[in-house]
């Protein structure tokens, strides 16, 4: 079924490592943006079945509950949203309060994803985050109080100056607050990140890559023991609590993205909305096309992408089924290049199913490259 992604490109402050499409919050701009979003969604109405909404950003929780409610309503009016949809709101702990969380719940949100990143205040400070570990714990408690039973936390590992013990502390902190879902991201420092300058100035350095590998492996083992199941390279969840929306990205699914810079995938096409917020609003208001960077994929490109995204899942891919969908025998086509990875234990071949082992997940790009 179709998923809907709604992008909110505003933040209360800018984090030094973030490369997403976002800018500083400004009330007037936000009002015009929300109006444009509603208009874009209504203009795209097809009445198709939809089973997930995802508010990403930026910081979508900077919107008022009423505004979230209006956007959800626009979606419901324009698509056949199922009776039990997954509606996720990415939330930053500093924007959360009991009252707001109750408001979001009333607006239809039934899953919150907190950008906690770390349970160590010194690390949060280094990342330019404006919340503390205690605020994060309170935010989870407030959400529980507001009735949320599907909470996800994001943590980042391999931060500058982070030791393996520091990382363990954050993982234990996460287990203590017992979310239903967690995402564990290895820090990626993009080329012009201000974090780079901060690091140079303060003399923080990244641990060797071997440490990153050990942090990753250790935390997944620890979360296994705490009753979580890894279902994707960077994601774990309690049974039945995988993110329905994010799974569409890894299972050759379809989604429509609304808002500036939002990505969409529909059949063979992938496209992206214009990224500038003002430009986006201007185009919506005059009905000009929003899509830029449209790519119509050949069947082989679709196959390749289904394979490399599918390999991100812990359960891997059913090569037989994916191949059949695009009329290709996957093993005939890629087997000779994949076999060395099978021999080394990075890739597991179980009947028609291909999946990465945990060491394989850490070097996933090496294997996925075979498919492009």
């Amino acid at each position, binding site marked *: 079924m179709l998923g809907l*992604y709604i992008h909110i490109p505003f933040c209360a402050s800018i984090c030094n490592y973030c490369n997403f499409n976002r800018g500083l919050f400004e009330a007037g701009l936000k009002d015009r943006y929300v109006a444009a979003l509603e208009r874009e969604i209504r203009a795209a109405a097809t009445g198709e079945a939809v089973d997930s909404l995802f508010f990403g950003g930026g910081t979508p929780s900077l919107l008022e509950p009423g505004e979230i409610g209006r956007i959800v309503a626009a979606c419901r009016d324009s698509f056949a949203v199922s009776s039990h949809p997954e509606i996720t709101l990415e939330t930053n702990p500093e924007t959360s309060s009991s009252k707001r969380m109750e408001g979001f719940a009333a607006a239809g949100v039934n899953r919150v994803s907190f950008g906690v990143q770390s349970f160590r205040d010194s690390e949060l400070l280094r990342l330019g985050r404006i919340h503390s570990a205690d605020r994060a714990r309170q935010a989870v408690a407030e959400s529980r109080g507001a009735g949320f039973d599907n909470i996800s936390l994001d943590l980042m590992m391999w931060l500058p100056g982070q030791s393996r013990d520091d990382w363990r502390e954050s993982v234990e902190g996460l287990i203590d607050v017992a979310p239903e879902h967690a995402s564990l991201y290895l820090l990626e420092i993009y080329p012009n990140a201000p974090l780079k300058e901060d690091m140079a100035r303060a003399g923080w350095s990244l641990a060797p890559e071997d440490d990153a*590998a050990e942090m990753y492996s250790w935390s997944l083992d620890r979360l296994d023991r705490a009753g979580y199941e890894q279902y994707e*390279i960077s994601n774990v969840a309690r049974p039945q609590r995988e993110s329905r929306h994010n799974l569409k*990205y890894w299972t050759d699914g379809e989604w429509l*993205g609304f808002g500036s810079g939002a990505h969409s995938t529909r059949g063979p096409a992938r496209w992206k909305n214009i990224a500038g917020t003002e430009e986006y609003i201007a185009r919506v208001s005059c009905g000009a096309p929003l899509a830029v960077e449209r790519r119509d994929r050949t069947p082989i490109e679709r196959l390749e992408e289904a394979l490399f995204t599918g390999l991100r899942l812990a359960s891997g891919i059913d090569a037989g089924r994916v191949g059949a969908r695009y009329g290709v025998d996957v093993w005939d086509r890629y087997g000779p290049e994949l076999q060395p990875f099978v021999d080394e234990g990075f890739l597991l071949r179980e009947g028609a199913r291909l999946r990465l082992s945990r060491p394989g997940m850490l070097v996933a*790009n090496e294997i996925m490259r075979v498919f492009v």
Partner: protein
Amino acid sequence: MDQRFIRNFAVIAHIDHGKSTLADRFLEMTGALQPREMEAQVLDSMDLERERGITIKAHAVRLTYRADDGREYVLNLIDTPGHVDFSYEVTRSLAACEGALLLVDASQGVEAQTLANAYLAVDNGLEIIPVVNKIDLPGAQPDEAKRQIEEIVGLDAAGAILASAKEGTGVHEILEAIVHRLPAPVGDPAAPLKALIFDSWYDAYRGVIILTRVIDGAIRAGMKVRLMAKGQEYEVDQVGVFSPKPVVATELGVGEVGFVFAGIKTVSDAQIGDTITEAARPAAEAFPGFKVSKPMVFAGLYPVEGSEYPELRDALEKLRLNDASFFFEPETSAALGFGFRCGFLGLLHMEIVQERLEREFGMDLVTTAPGVLYRVTKTDGTVEEIDSPSKLPDTGRIATIEEPVITAMMLTPAEHVGAILKLCQEKRGVQKSIEYLAADRVLVTYELPFNEVVMDFYDRLKTLSRGYASLDYHVTGYQDAPLVKLDILVNEEPVDALSVIVHRDTAYQRGRALASKMRELIPRQMFEVAIQAAIGSRIIARESVKALRKNVLAKCYGGDISRKRKLLEKQKEGKKRMKRVGRVEIPQEAFLAVLKVGTET
């Protein structure tokens, strides 16, 4: 054409001292080209030349100049390559002239190349007119430049012309000086034809185009001619001059300079320095000084994609049509597959060939470290010339190895002399002389093993003198040397393309430095990679590249799969540029790292 009104001249200048700009001014002022027709610096016709500021092929342009005395003169400007790699071509171009302009930058002064070429011109009996150029620049010191011309080059600079080719100052005086101070060609119009080939190149439509200077007699279309070096005969299709556009003429007479088409298929049949004579009435002897240019620097060229071997062969054959001094033969490397051992006049020549292959023919190449031609006397008394480390016989069968030696002239500001002497000592040099030519200009002359210079000498000379020292060299002979072959093994397998021939005394250091450089350059792979340096069966250094532990994109940016795809494609592209040796992917830089790894670490 009355030879009294012909002047043949060359311009001797260091790169960037303004030769091309001056040539442009000549073309404008003699009306050869209207200003609107001028593309800046028309003489350097190849893109590559324009970009590098180097004239690779000589050209000749005929200018018609009405002098202040009211008479019309034909001035043939013969362009010369400026780099030491092409010193033989320079001598042939100079041999076609009666005089030369010595162009010196008013702020830079005399450079080693200028000096070397000025000496060549003097040796060829040319009349020289010193010109101090770029006097318009704020840093110009024309008096200092004149003093250097007197003290360093040893020419009387009293008559030196001060000019700014850029602004056109002094250009008229230069033209007048050419007319009045340079001699007219001497030669016998009635004698049998004798014409010097000073350049030739291949044109896809016309075959080989010869540039020639008629010494005696005349050459005309329809004439049956003989090229004296090989004795082959051809019928002349057409003769003419470049003005600078080609203009067909009925004949080229004594002292004239122009082109000849004679249906010749490759430049190796019309080599620079050869003499054209009439088949029916040949000259008694050829113009002196012809020699077949011999490659001195050798390297392996391999296609990155093994399947592109035939394309590489075709490209090399096409280049060879146009460049008789360039040599290649098939070579097989266990590491790199099928490729070619190529010989070049020098390092610049090698770079030019490489760039043309990449740019004009779209080849993706791996180049092995350049080496020189060694002479090996084997225990059975036979002598072999070795152009590749892999051809070196087993130690047991070698009696002696000789290496080529060069005489290197380095001209430098005094403050860098110490550092240059240190570099030359490190490179096993033998000092010949240190001359203070002027207060701040020192000429350092050394005898150096050529292979040490091929390694990284020039780059380091430039670095340690902050770009101020200049170098000129020529090969003077061979000397015995205790040389050994240093091998690099990757995961126990010797990588033949990484082998180098080095002096025994520096082999250990170089081996260690090279192994450690390989560790830096070889990226982490899915398994541990062992790197060893060895002399014969003796391992002298070892390093290892630990297995790759992490290469994963953590986050999906709001469903942005295209970004993921781009990243994977980029990584794949990076891999493609590597060579697979056994299971190990080795980046191309590794094959040239041998050069960068000195003994100074």
